[in-house]
């Protein structure tokens, strides 16, 4: 078990190293951050001064060496465009994105699996067809368009919910969260729903297909032949067996929720990490890009690890292998 976790951490360290080289080369290839950062009224001498102050005049390998030597001491440098430590900027925004992603994932899982199960158990029922049809719409409509519709309907026409922003937050152990106040929840509702829609549809379709597949299997027939109650057949035998692919997909999708929340965040002016990275890229803010990617890689590693551990909960065979 410990072995397994350590190996995973080692792998992610390697990923981090490769990624930092790529970012350095990539930003260097795009352009000189000076041209974006500097005051247009500045003259050539001032450009030189700024370039020297940020260490951008040095050859690339020297800049990278300097970065590495600072990074191993935990210092990723100050953001070019915000003039504060890049890592603290990312952590400032991380809670907002995580909260949004967790809420979206909860909506997707808590609605998606029951709805998919329902549709898979009674494929011919009208409700099942409705769920299937709606899920097709859900993942074929583009996020930004659905988001606009949600805003136009719930905020502009009905005026029930705010059009964007995070609203007031409540501090829990120093981390600001929205879901503990009524106004915060109102602000959270639309962006979370918008972000959840695609995943929700995906989970419905996946659960429905897996359920229909499972129902054909011998063990279900056996269970029914034994005279087990339908609730036990579905709740234990079917559900347990379809959970493995669902966990895999949900884990992967949770990662992509965090990474691709940017469209929703921009549309709803949600101050999360997605907006931060887009701004960082447009400003060629290299320290910030690196800090963001570092945190994201670690986050993905953690999610994957968690997914693998969850397999063990549902599948005794995996559990045996993990503890061995």
């Amino acid at each position, binding site marked *: 078990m410990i072995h397994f976790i350590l190996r995973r951490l080692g792998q992610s360290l390697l990923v981090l190293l490769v990624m930092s080289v790529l970012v350095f080369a990539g930003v260097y290839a795009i352009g000189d951050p000076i041209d974006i950062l500097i005051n247009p*009224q500045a003259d050539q001498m001032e450009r030189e001064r700024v370039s020297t102050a940020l260490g951008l005049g040095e050859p690339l390998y020297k800049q990278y060496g300097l970065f590495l030597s600072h990074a191993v001491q935990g210092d990723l440098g100050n953001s070019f465009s915000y*003039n504060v430590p890049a890592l603290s900027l990312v952590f400032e925004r991380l809670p907002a994105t995580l909260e949004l992603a967790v809420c979206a994932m909860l909506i997707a899982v808590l609605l998606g699996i029951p709805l998919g199960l329902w549709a898979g158990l009674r494929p011919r029922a009208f409700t099942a067809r409705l769920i299937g049809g709606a899920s097709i719409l859900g993942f074929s409509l583009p996020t930004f368009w659905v988001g*606009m519709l949600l*805003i136009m309907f719930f905020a502009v026409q009905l005026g029930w919910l705010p059009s964007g922003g995070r609203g007031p937050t409540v501090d829990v152990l120093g981390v600001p969260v929205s879901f503990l106040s009524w106004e915060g929840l109102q602000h959270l509702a639309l962006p979370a729903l918008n972000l959840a829609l695609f995943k929700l549809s995906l989970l419905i379709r996946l659960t429905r297909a897996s359920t229909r597949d499972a129902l054909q299997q011998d063990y279900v027939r056996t269970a029914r032949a034994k005279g087990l109650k339908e609730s036990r057949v579905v709740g234990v035998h079917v559900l347990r067996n379809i959970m493995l692919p669902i966990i895999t997909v949900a884990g992967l999708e949770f990662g992509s929720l965090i990474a691709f929340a940017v469209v929703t965040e921009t549309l709803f*002016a949600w101050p999360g990490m997605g*907006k931060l990275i887009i701004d960082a*890229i*447009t400003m060629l803010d290299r320290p910030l890009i690196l800090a963001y990617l570092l945190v994201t890689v670690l986050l993905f590693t953690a999610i994957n690890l968690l997914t693998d551990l969850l397999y063990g909960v549902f599948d005794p065979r995996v559990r045996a292998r993990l503890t061995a």
Partner: protein
Amino acid sequence: MRRIYWPLSCLLLLFPVLCLAASGRELRIGLSADVSSMDPHFAALASNVNISSHVFDTLTQVDADAKLIPWLAESWRTIDDTTWEFKLRRGVRFHDGSELTAEDVVFSLERPMTFNNRPSGFQSYVKSIVAKEIVDSHTLRLKTATPYALLPYELVSVFIVSRRAAEKAQAVDFDNGRAMVGSGPFRFARFLRGDRVELARNDQYWGPAPHWEHVSFRIVTSDPARIAGLLAGDFDVIDNVPPSDVARIGKDTRFALERKTSWRTIFYTMDQRGPPFENPTHDRRVRLALSKAIDRRVIAEKVMEGQAVPTANVVSPSVFGHVSTLAAEAYDPEGARKLLAEAGYAQGFALTVHAPNNRYVNDEQVAQAVAQMLSRVGVRTRVETLPLNIYFSKARAQEFPFAMLGWGSFSGNLALRSLLMTNDPSRGRGAWNWGRYSNPRFDELVAQSLQTLDASEREKLVHDAMRQAHADTAILPLYHQIAVWALRKDLAYTARTDEFTFAFDVRPR
């Protein structure tokens, strides 16, 4: 029992706060550009300056028409060619109650040059000052190395901070408000990066008291989201209304629009380097032909949907140095073809039209329209648009023969110094002269105008320089942008040439 009382007492405690937030006198503004820092001397971004202008004052200021006016400095005069004396307004107090004196001013003028080892975007505005002398607590003398007429204009951009509060402050201290001690009409309340800035009225303000007790600036960079916020009633005012929404909001009886010709001029630079480079645009006739081939009226009316004014000037009408007699080049495709033939390009030539795609309003569409117009007179055009981070680096390296650029300046000769003076790094001239236009007579005129302290004489020099650049077709000015604000019908705003959105200029109708 106690458990039930807990949330109840919380609510009761919160009640006055909620009431305060809800009671009138609160202005909610939706801004289109992100604010990167609260430190007023860090980044010279318009969005940062916009917020700083509420909390801090400057020595000089410009009014809504970009005319220089006294501010913290009640008056100024030149003692000799290189010495300026500024008289400070008396009785101005910082938010912490201390009085603003010449010491704070000197500290503020020095701070950008000694800035925590980090680059400050405000060095440009103070670097001409070589010595500072405090005559008395409210009189200050500034020396420049050479006569420099634009010092009062540049001081418009330098915020005066409290020496006591800012001396040891880091960026964090500004962001969390500890060092946000200014003398402006609003006090700092809260900064949530990427989300909002909240301000409260400074009741001890020396100038006219703002109408609003509380102001919140929300950052909403997405255009549709900002518009939706206005429509949903979440904002009272929004800036930067995109041209495509102007007509629609104009028809809505709940809202009013405020417009102003902005100081931002959009133009095309042309590569004018001679042999060994093969540049058709090295020939002035070709440059003039390109200018005649562009129908600026159509661009302003159709592509910009009326939110632009065609022009032949580098600076917009209210800015110092604008030449009102220069008319926008008339659309004349026949004349353009004739000029091209004269220059030996009867068969046209190939030209790539470059533009950024995330910088100016409708920049990409304008580039496409320009390219189409040029191809009508026989120039074989190709359009290439790039995000700003790639675009500026390449343009500065002279990789573009024909490139779009936008510029705003308080004074015409400042714009000319950066844009069109012969590129000379050692003297800080022509830093943005992408096309490498160079004319010694023009350089002389601009250089003289920068040194001429007499305003009317200076204006004449700037006008002559503008006419020279026009006669040489040094760049192709297209149009001045029109800045548009949308606000609740019962509010009024004094729209500004410099595009800033000042809460103290918003008032009930």
